[in-house]
Structure formats: structure tokens, C-alpha cells
């Protein structure tokens, strides 16, 4: 929490500028994107490094489902991040769901619910969904867990968990992860 505050405080002058100078807003945002903007940018990218099991393979051109499960810290950020983006020539659709039961058909799910995060995660069962969490969601980690280190957004990857759900993650992504919990 304190770290988050510090993070925001470090961004404060810029944010202030953004507020004070509306014309510079875009450039300011471009110059120093916010934490959740970066995370929002990252989310769809993960799809390029993950292979879903055969029964979930999409028909060409079918969209990728990106779900926000629980709280939505992104707001418009996620929508603008996926706009115009293509992953394997697929468009990305964002869905906001409140319960795990409604998460069927998702490919990627960003799970945040405070204390409810672990319940939400376990509620997904063995579904082949790439779960992404961050520090706001408590200690429970998904397959990809965002952290902020040295002012930069990094992530941990739990390859074992992903394998248990039938997902395989490209080694290149593993190479840039902070830590990797390898599958057995």
C-alpha cells in the first residue's frame, strides 16, 4: 500500500501537469504512462505468448476474450489498449464479469477482488483461462502476477499453474519474467 502511494506520489507532478495542462495530457500520458495503463497494455500481449489447449482453439478471425473479473481498476484504459490491437489477426473483446461462473469463454481473466481474489481464482476451477493478478488482489497469485519494481511493471509467472490448466507459455515470455515457477 505504501509503495503504491509512493508510486502515485512519484507520478504526482506529472499527474498535476496532466491536470493543469490539458493539451499536454496526451503527451504526458505518452511520456509516463500510469501503472494500470501499462498493465492494460500488457494484458492483451500475453495472448501472443500463450498456447491454449486444442479444444479451446479458436477459428481464424474469432475474437480473443479478455475478461475483467471482480474489480475493474482499468476503466477506459483497457478499452483503449485493446482498440485496434490484433493478436494472431484476432480482435480483442473486453468483458467485465463479476462472478467466476460467468467467466466461461474467457481466454484471459484479470482477477482482482481484494479478499475475494482467491475465491474468484478457485472458482475458475480447471478452466483453460490465463489468470492475471496484481498486488492489489492480495497475496494470492494467478498464473501471471504483476509487480512494480524500480518504477517498472514486471511480472511473475507460475508456469506450473498454467500447465495444470492446460496452457503452455512461450519461453521468450518466461525469459523476461521476474521469476518463473516452472512446471514439474
Amino acid at each position, binding site marked *: 500500500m505504501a509503495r503504491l502511494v509512493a508510486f502515485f506520489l512519484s507520478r504526482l507532478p506529472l499527474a498535476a501537469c496532466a491536470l493543469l495542462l490539458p493539451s499536454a495530457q496526451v503527451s504526458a500520458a505518452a511520456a509516463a504512462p500510469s501503472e494500470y495503463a*501499462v498493465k492494460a497494455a*500488457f494484458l492483451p*500481449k500475453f*495472448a*501472443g*505468448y500463450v498456447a491454449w489447449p486444442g479444444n479451446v482453439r479458436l477459428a481464424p478471425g474469432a475474437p480473443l476474450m479478455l475478461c475483467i473479473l471482480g474489480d475493474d481498476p482499468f476503466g477506459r484504459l483497457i478499452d483503449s489498449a485493446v482498440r485496434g*490491437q*490484433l*493478436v*494472431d*489477426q484476432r480482435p480483442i473483446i473486453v468483458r467485465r464479469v463479476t462472478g467466476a461462473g460467468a467467466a466461461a469463454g474467457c481466454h484471459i481473466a484479470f482477477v482482482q477482488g481484494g479478499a475475494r481474489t482467491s475465491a474468484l481464482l478457485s472458482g475458475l476451477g480447471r478452466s483453460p483461462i490465463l489468470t492475471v493478478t496484481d498486488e492489489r488482489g492480495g497475496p494470492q497469485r494467478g498464473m501471471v502476477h504483476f509487480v512494480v519494481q524500480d518504477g*517498472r*511493471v514486471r511480472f511473475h509467472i507460475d508456469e506450473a499453474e498454467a500447465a495444470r490448466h492446460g496452457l503452455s507459455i*512461450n519461453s*521468450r*515470455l518466461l*525469459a*523476461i519474467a521476474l521469476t518463473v515457477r516452472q512446471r514439474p
Partner: protein
Amino acid sequence: MVPGLAGLMAVLLLAAAFGIIFQYDGVYRAQKAREASVQAEILAASVTAALDFGDTASTQQAVDALKVNPQIEAAGVYTADGMRVAGYERRHGRLPARFTDAPADDGNAVEARAPVLRGGQRIGGVYLATIRDPISRRLTRYLMLSLLVLMAALVILVLGIAQTALRRANRELGERASALGAANAELKVQIEERVRAEEELRQAQKMQALGQLTGGIAHDFNNLLTVIQGSADILRRPGVPEAKRIRFAEAIVQTSTRAAALTGQLLAFARRQPLKPEVVDVNTRILAMIDLLDRTLGERFEIRTELAPDLCAIEVDPAQLESAILNVAVNARDAMAEGGLVTIRTAEAGRLDDGRRAIGLSVTDAGAGIEPEALARIFEPFYTTKAVGKGTGLGLSQVYGFAAQSGGDVRVESEVGSGTTVTIILPCSDRGASETAAIVEAEGLHRTGRILVVDDNEEVGAFAELLLGELGHQVVRVRSGPEAISAAESGNGFDVVFTDVVMPGMSGLELADRLKPLLPGVPVVLTTGYSDEITRSGTGGLPVVYKPYRLETLAGVLDQVLQPPPLAE
């Protein structure tokens, strides 16, 4: 003088080599570009996630990994917007700041750009610049190749030059060979000319000798004929006193005798004189001749004999032997004008070429000697050093002819001022000497009979008829062999047939043969002046009267022939 073809080939080879080098250079460049491209793609693949998730550290790590390759001059990773995220450059400013910027390139670099793709979407770009081999390294590489090619070209050139030189040498050789051939032909021509010239010279010499001979003969005979004709003319005149008649007739006889002697000597030289060889002892003969020699040489000369005992017998014509010794003695006499000593020696001589033993009969005088130049010519007929009228020049020719025909030789040793020795070499006879009693003299009655005379020559035949008539014989004369046969067949019978040998058609010898059955037991007497045939094959046992014959000779032979069957010898 670089040979054309070889030079051309060398130049072509070099050009091809350079072409290959340039081609290779281009190929090399393309290859390098491909390599760079591939390397860029590899780099792009390796930085995809790092670039995607903004992991600058990892991106830079990937770029830095290329530092180990010395050929990579610069490498950079750019975002989709073209901003440089990470990079490496050997030289400052080498790496473009933005992806689309042109590099600060010196033209020596090979560049490559590759997109960073994630799931088919371009999320950035990679720029790579490699340097080509430095010029020095390339040149070194090409230098090796060039050297090899140069060597090959040189080899070709050398071969070409060598071949040209060889061809030239061959050509020169050919020229020299043909020059040699021409010289050889020239030489042959000259040799032929020389041989021809020698032939002509020899012929000329022969003709000259012949001319000398015939001239000499003609000259001598003319002299004799003058006397004979002149004497005959006188005899024909009427009213010539008896004493004069006898004198001129005597002259004719003597002159004819000399003429006969002359022909005899000529024939002896020609070796055509038919010899009547007998086995004689040379010493006995010499001793028998001593009186004759004394008379011939005269009072002022002394004759000494040194005769070796127990010499082998020789087989010679005794008359010819006598003549030979006489001729040599006469020469010895003429060489010593004041008189002197003449020594006759006989001794055993060395073996002849055919291995037979021989004896030598030598006559030595102490006279003026013979000049060395004359020595070579003394046996030539009519060659004489004596004054005109003093010698016929035929003496030594007879000696030579006699010796040669008897199977021997004549040698002369002479020293000017000291004297001369003439040696006659004669081979020993196989048979023993039988000094028989001399010829049975025809004594007693002079017989006559019917004689058939055969001669194709009118004068000689008529003369024979006359002579025989004088002797008291009955003569029938015919002019040829066939006529003689007719006469024999006519059956009148003859006691003797007197025939010439040399006749056209049938010869005397042939006639004798043919007459055997017709006139059995009738003796045939041959007469001839010269007969090759007789010399070769003998008379076949028939008696011969040689022309010119004296009356006594003819009478004697006929007497002998008309006698009853022969005396044993």
C-alpha cells in the same frame, strides 16, 4: 616474340580470372547481405518479448550479445514507432537514431533490417550493420587466386614460346637439311664428272699407246716392205745378171725373216704367240746357248755364268726362252758401249702368289743403268732409249710377254752409273724334266704326195700351191671348208690336207674334224699366222706351220707327216 595463340590464351585466362573474381565479389556481397538479414531476424526473434513488454534491460542484453562478433558494426532495436530502444555501435553515430534513418555508412557495410513480430503483428524493428571483409583481407584472398591464375597463364605462355622456338628450330633444321641435300647432290654430280674425266683420260692414254704401237709397227714394216718391194722390182726387170738376182733375192729373204721376227715379237707381247711348252732344265739350255750368246755379244764382252745346281725343271717354249735370254743379253750389250762383263745367274726364287715354287734367271750388266722414270716404261712395245735404227723397242716386250704367258714375271733392278739386272721368274714344272733328244731330223728322202690346199686368201693359197708344186707335190686348191669336203668326197683321195685355220664359215679345225670320216688316216696340217682359237684350245694334236713359213719348214713338216706312223718320243 610472344606467340599469338598462347598469348591470347593467357590473356583470356587472366580476363576470365578477373571476371570470376568480380563475380565472386558480387556473390560474396549478396551472401553477406543474406547473412546479415538472417542475423537481424534472429535478433528480432530474440528481443520480441523484451520489446513487447518494454524490458529494456533484456533487449540491451540481447543486442550486447552480438558484440562478440567483430564483423557486426552496429545493431539496434526499435519500437513500432521507430524509436530506438537498445543498440550497439562500434563507431559513434554508426547506428541510426530512428529505424527509418539512413545510416552513416561508408559504403563498405552490409545492412539488414528486420521486423519484430509477435503473432504476425509488427511490434518493432531491428537494424543490423555488418562490415565486409576489410579490403586487405579480400585482396589477400583474391591475390592467392590471382597468383594461381598468373602462374597458369605464365605456364601457357612459356609453352607457347617454347613451341614457337621449337618450330623455328625445326624450320632451320629443315633448311639446313635441304642445303645439305643440295650440297650432296652437287658432290655426286662432281664425282660423276670426275669419274667421267678419268675415264676419258684413260681412254686417251690407251689411244695414245695404241697409236704409238701401230705407228711403230707401220714404220718398221714400211721399212721392210721398201726393201722387199724394191728388190722384187729389180728382179722383175729383164736382163738382170745372175749375181745381182741372187743378191736381191737374198735381201728379200732376209728382210722377210726380219719381218717375221717382228710379228713374232709383237705376238709375244700380245701373249697370243702360241707356245709349244716343253719341260726343260734351264741350266742346260743356257749352256747350250753360250756359243750363240758369244757370237751375239761380240769379242769385247765376257760372259760369266753362275748357275745354281739342282734347280727344278720349268715348262716353257724353248724357242721363246732363247729369244728372251737373247733380248736381255742384247740390251746388256747395248748398255755397255765399250764392252764388259755380263753375268748370267740362275737361282731358286721365292714362291709365287699361287704357292708354286719358282726359279729366277737374271742377266746383269755393268752398264749405264736405267733412269727411274724410264724403268716404268721399259716393257712398253716400241719404247726404246736407243737411237733410231739401233733397236726396235720390242725386245723387252717379248721378254715380258714370254714370262707372263709362262706364268712368271720379270723384274728389273737398275742404278744409274752402276748397271742393270733383269730377272725372269719362271714357275717350276709339275712334271720332271726330260731332256729328250732333239727333234728327229728329217733326213733322207724327200717325199711327195697329193695335197689338198684349203685357204680363203687368194694370194696365200696361190703361193702355197706354187711352193708345194716346187717341192714336187700334186696340189688341189680349194677356197673354203665346204669346197674341201666336196673335193674329199669326190673320191680322188689325198695324202695330206693343208688348210688355213682362220676361214669364214668353217674353220680349219672344224674342217679337220669333218674330214676324219671322209679321209680316214689322212693327216691334216694346219697353217696360221695367228689364232686365238689355237692359243686357247690347242691344235687338237694336229701339226701347225706358222706363217710366215720358209720353204724348208714346210717341206720338213710335210715330210714328217707323209712318213709312216710316228716315232716314239
